């Protein structure tokens, strides 16, 4: 994941700088932001990576930032770090969608493991997203007739029934079916079914 960036958001210069140093030393790509607003102003194009944010910050808190990102469909995982940990705050952070809640000061292993996990999740997520995008493109290349045949194939109907329903010959259905398999680059019917489900699934 060479393009995955860790965004460190903390209003405390020392914490921000030192965390960036630690992550750099651990071989990660880091960008620092002095506030949540600064991060939003300079929002990265890519969803690759994750966010480490403090909660108590002037302007916008870490929790508010998570709400904003969620509303923007940003999928970067958020790790919350705080020097003021208590149970209600942790619950609030987890409900807002934080992948982890770490109390300052923390050991390097804790933060590094958490961030690596977050990056892995982010990577998987982005892989799924990429596959779905490809499948959606392939689906878009199908003609209306081919789409009708695909729907019925996935629903488990035999060729004859499809032919009868669409008012075409079983032979023609076979041609459409071959085209669909070809365009979707599916090797088998079962793979075609899985692809369709992936394409229609939500994030």
């Amino acid at each position, binding site marked *: 994941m060479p393009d995955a960036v860790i965004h460190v958001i903390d209003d*405390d210069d*020392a*914490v921000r700088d030192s965390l960036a*140093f*630690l992550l750099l*030393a651990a071989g990660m790509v880091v960008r620092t932001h002095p506030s949540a607003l600064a991060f939003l102003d300079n929002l990265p194009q890519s969803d690759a990576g994750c966010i480490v944010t403090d909660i108590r910050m002037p302007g916008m808190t870490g929790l508010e930032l998570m709400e904003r990102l969620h509303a923007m469909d940003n999928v970067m995982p958020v790790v919350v770090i705080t020097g*003021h940990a208590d149970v209600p705050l942790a619950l609030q952070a987890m409900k807002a969608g934080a992948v982890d809640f770490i109390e*300052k*000061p923390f050991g*390097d292993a804790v933060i590094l493991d958490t961030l690596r996990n977050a990056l892995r999740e982010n990577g998987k997520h982005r892989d799924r997203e990429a596959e779905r995008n490809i499948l959606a493109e392939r689906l878009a290349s199908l003609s209306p007739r081919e789409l009708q045949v695909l729907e019925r194939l996935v629903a488990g109907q035999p060729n004859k029934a499809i032919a009868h329903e669409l008012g075409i010959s079983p032979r023609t259905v076979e041609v459409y079916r071959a085209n669909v398999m070809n365009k979707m680059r599916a090797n088998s019917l079962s793979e075609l079914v899985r692809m369709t489900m992936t394409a229609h699934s939500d994030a």
Partner: protein
Amino acid sequence: MCREFRRYLPYLVAFGAMGVVMAIRAAIPDSYYHNSPFLLGLGAVVLTSIYGGALPGLLCAALALVIEVFRWAPAFGPEELFNGALFCPLAIAIACGGGWLRRSRARGTAAVEHLREREAHLQSILDTVPDAMVVIDERGVIQSFSKAAERMFLWTAGEAIGRNVSTLMPSPDREAHNSYLARYLETGEHRIIGKGREVLGRRKDGSIFPMELHVGETRSHRYYFTGIIRDLTARNEAEARLRELQSELTHVARFSAMGEMASTLAHELNQPLSAIANYLKGGILLLRSNEPDLPKTIDAIDKAADQALRAGQIIHRLREFVGRGEIDKRIESLSQLIDEAIALTLVGPKSAGVRIQRDLDPAFDAVFADRVQIQQVMLNLIRNSVDAMEHTPRQELAVSTRLTDDDFVLISFTDTGTGLRQEVSARLFQPFITTKPHGMGVGLSISREIIKGHGGRIWAENNPAGGATFHFTLPLATELEHA
């Protein structure tokens, strides 16, 4: 019936007296007294008018006149006429004089009766009022000791009268009272007469209580001083409770402020601490890599050190916060501060058996201090001592002051309590350290901050004979003036 009889008794006496006169005259020949035939009658008039007043006297005189005139009518000559004329004004004068005598005697009796009544009334008032009254003469010897005084001081009037009034006082008034009296008699300067003052009283059993004393003087051929004394224990109890509540409130307010501060500080302290951890852990990662980047690592360690200093500054700010508070320093009388603090704390059942010994150096009495804050410290120390002595057989608290080498006054509170346990004494003045079941552990830490704010020191030690002594120092006011 009886009253009627008593009313007419003098008149009966008049008749009786004349009867006696007639009997005497019948028994004795006329020649014996023919020169003064009215002499016996005059005697009867004197006796009757002295006994019965003017009217019975006049009656007696009239009877005597009638008897003389009728009895010796045949021999009535100029001599008898002269005697009769002489008798009449004399008898009237005697009767009037007797009447006046009787009236004034009755008035005298009524006045005495009235006086006695008033005295009884006064006594009943004095016996009922809660204020005690003690009368002393110019030598300080007790002349009168009221019922309330008996209740207050536990001496009976019989025991107290004849003793010197200083028996009712604790030191140092006890030793100095005679000189107070002597000074007043010499200079006439009013120190306490006519003004009420709060002083300490001493009961027969040695216990000390706060009281309000008003003194009035009576001057006839000798001086008498009347002291009206009100026991302030109850009032001071209420005041002490109020003050306790106030100080508790201040503590709680400070406590919650400290709690809030502590929470903020925890957050603030976590920032440099996490930065330090990050720099050092990152530095280790760099050093462990195949080609360590030394300049970068050194830079990180340098930054970590800076963050450690930052953490230190945050802790310093906490200290300043705890020690904060308005200090209103004035020149105060140390003995007065101590006496008031004692009077405030020595109320309530816990301190009933505590004996106080004061050993205050009058030469170093003026200190430069915030009255409220220093009394807060004293209250804390005395209360701690009283608590520590709750279950010990000997309950003595000695307060002493003396000059230190560096021109401070050293104030020491020595008790006979349980003393300080080893593990506690090291952390005695730290906040939130307490040995009391309901203590918050702020009393001594705040005391230390107060004394520090005054430029003094506070410390504690165990006594060789048991119990603990708390010392603190305050700057002498005189030294400050010279400085």
